[in-house]
């Protein structure tokens, strides 16, 4: 029996020639990630492991991005704790706010060259699955796993089964990777990929930008998936040549591809031209609707950013629609570039000026309102269109507020028109 991409990466990291779905293995890790929410409890567990230091100072990343710049005393205490831990243990990839390499964890790790094809990565954050876009195996875990992995550089996995998404064709105009992943979740449900890898293959992949692939893998967890993964192609290599030049030059990465006889629990054939502009209604990502098929829904706020859609490509797309237009009076539009690098490039390209002229507020590179932390919390009864990844009850504020998930073109059109709308209505 052949292996899937994910199974091959896991086998290689477990020192085995072959693994099969359901098998429990112990694997070596290339990178271990924690943030300002999950690292503080992990530090307490780490103390109990009796380890004096982390397994490899260059392979641990700690990113204070959720409640930073610190929103209250408790978050300031948490950030102080992880800052001191990082200093004491000599962790090389600790990013302080304002650092040119700082930003939302899943935006900056690939940008900072910490991810390459064939890597095995865990992070104490459920959206760690984002890095599958680069042909890596990456999945989210809890704080105990983070602590033990920081100590040993290893963890255990149950080798997942896989679902294959065979992509052909090209998107219609203004349809994005976000629409594709929302549409898929709408079809298979929030537990449609429980335990499983979501492997994206087929000729349609070549046309997807790296930003789209990162967005798609980011939301694998919203279908219950263990990881999402793309094959490595020219675009992937171009990406790591840009962002991980040392590893590219040293060829210290491995492009795994699935065997022809790899086993999949199911295979979906998707013509990208069939994917519509999609919005997930409250309060589950699977609650999808096609733009233009529902009664007008008036909104109070739009959020553009997060680890799902806070990359430079997303901001360019937003600026394309905002240029010469303004946010509807009575609606607030908050833009959070995903990293300092994105912020700076958006500044250099004149995108931020377009946003400000369009009456948007441009915020710091932080998670902020995505998880209802700060910088854009919703009041009772308010509605928000957001490019983030979760619309659970109370995710962005009051339990009686509502979050509608969408891609950037729909979010911008909605901000301009004051109701959920597609860009063709502009």
């Amino acid at each position: 029996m052949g292996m899937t991409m994910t199974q091959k990466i896991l086998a290689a990291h477990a020192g085995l020639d072959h693994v099969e779905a359901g098998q429990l293995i112990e694997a070596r890790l290339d990178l271990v990630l924690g943030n300002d929410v999950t690292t503080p409890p992990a530090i307490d567990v780490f103390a109990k492991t009796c380890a004096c230091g982390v397994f490899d100072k260059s392979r641990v990343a700690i990113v204070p991005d959720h409640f930073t710049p610190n929103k209250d005393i408790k978050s300031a205490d948490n950030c102080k704790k992880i800052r001191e831990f990082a200093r004491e243990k000599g962790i090389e990839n600790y990013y302080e706010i304002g650092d040119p390499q700082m930003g939302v964890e899943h935006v900056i790790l690939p940008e900072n060259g910490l991810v390459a094809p064939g890597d095995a990565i865990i992070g104490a954050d459920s959206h760690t699955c984002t890095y599958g876009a680069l042909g890596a195996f990456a999945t989210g875990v809890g704080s105990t796993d983070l602590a033990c992995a920081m100590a040993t550089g290893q963890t255990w996995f149950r080798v997942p089964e896989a679902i294959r998404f065979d992509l052909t064709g090209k998107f219609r105009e203004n349809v994005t990777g976000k629409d594709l992943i929302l549409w898929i979740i709408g079809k298979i449900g929030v537990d449609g990929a429980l335990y499983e890898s979501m492997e994206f293959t087929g000729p349609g992949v070549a046309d997807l930008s790296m930003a789209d692939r990162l967005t798609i893998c980011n939301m694998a967890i919203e279908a219950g998936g263990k990881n999402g993964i793309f094959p490595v192609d020219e675009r992937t290599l171009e990406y790591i040549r840009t962002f991980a030049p040392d590893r590219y030059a040293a060829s210290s990465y491995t492009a795994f591809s699935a065997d022809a006889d790899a086993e999949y629990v199911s295979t979906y054939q998707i013509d990208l031209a069939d994917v519509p502009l999609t919005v997930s209604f409250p309060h589950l990502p699977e609650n999808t609707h096609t733009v233009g098929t529902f009664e007008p829904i008036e909104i109070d706020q739009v959020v553009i950013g997060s680890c799902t859609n806070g990359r430079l490509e997303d901001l360019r797309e937003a600026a394309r629609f905002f240029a010469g237009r303004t946010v509807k009076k009575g609606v607030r539009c908050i833009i959070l570039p995903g990293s300092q690098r994105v912020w700076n490039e958006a500044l250099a390209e004149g995108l931020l000026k377009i946003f400000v002229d369009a009456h948007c507020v441009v915020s710091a590179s932080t998670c902020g309102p995505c998880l209802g932390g700060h910088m854009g919390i919703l009041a009772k009864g308010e509605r928000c269109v957001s490019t983030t990844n979760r619309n659970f009850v109370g995710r962005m504020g009051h339990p009686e507020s509502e979050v509608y998930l969408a891609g950037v073109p729909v979010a911008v059109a909605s901000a301009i028109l004051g109701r959920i709308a597609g860009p063709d209505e502009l």
Partner: protein
Amino acid sequence: MIAKGKVFKYGDNVDTDVIIPARYLNTSVPSELAKHCMEDIDTTFVSRVQPGDILVAGKNFGCGSSREHAPIAIKASGISCVIAPSFARIFYRNAINMGLAILESTEAAEAIQNGDEVSIDFETGTITDVTTGASFQAKPFPAFIRKIIEADGLVGYIATQK
């Protein structure tokens, strides 16, 4: 390693809120959590469960939040193993990391009845319903997972590796 005990049987999709309701999450002391384990679906569980007893349930056991308190509560209540056709992914990880044995077997989960006496050999993965005489084969744990469970969880295991 052998577990033996009486079976408590529940249905599909037992979620982490049922295993340990959020209102008790202001502590992470195992014995405190154990006092409220399963109380929203079975108020008698806590008073009846004996050390070594076995929990048998339907599919997707442990779905919901990533709280590590759920496997801690089950383990501290005295349960030696949970048998189900499938487990929610994060619960599965957390259970092993907290040293709670779990086995996947659709046949065993269906056939074993509430109150049966069951014994489990973790080395071979054999589940025996002592009451009916039927036996079932689950995939045994590899040695390192057995060691994690024997060491009372991942933290203990790592300490033994030093």
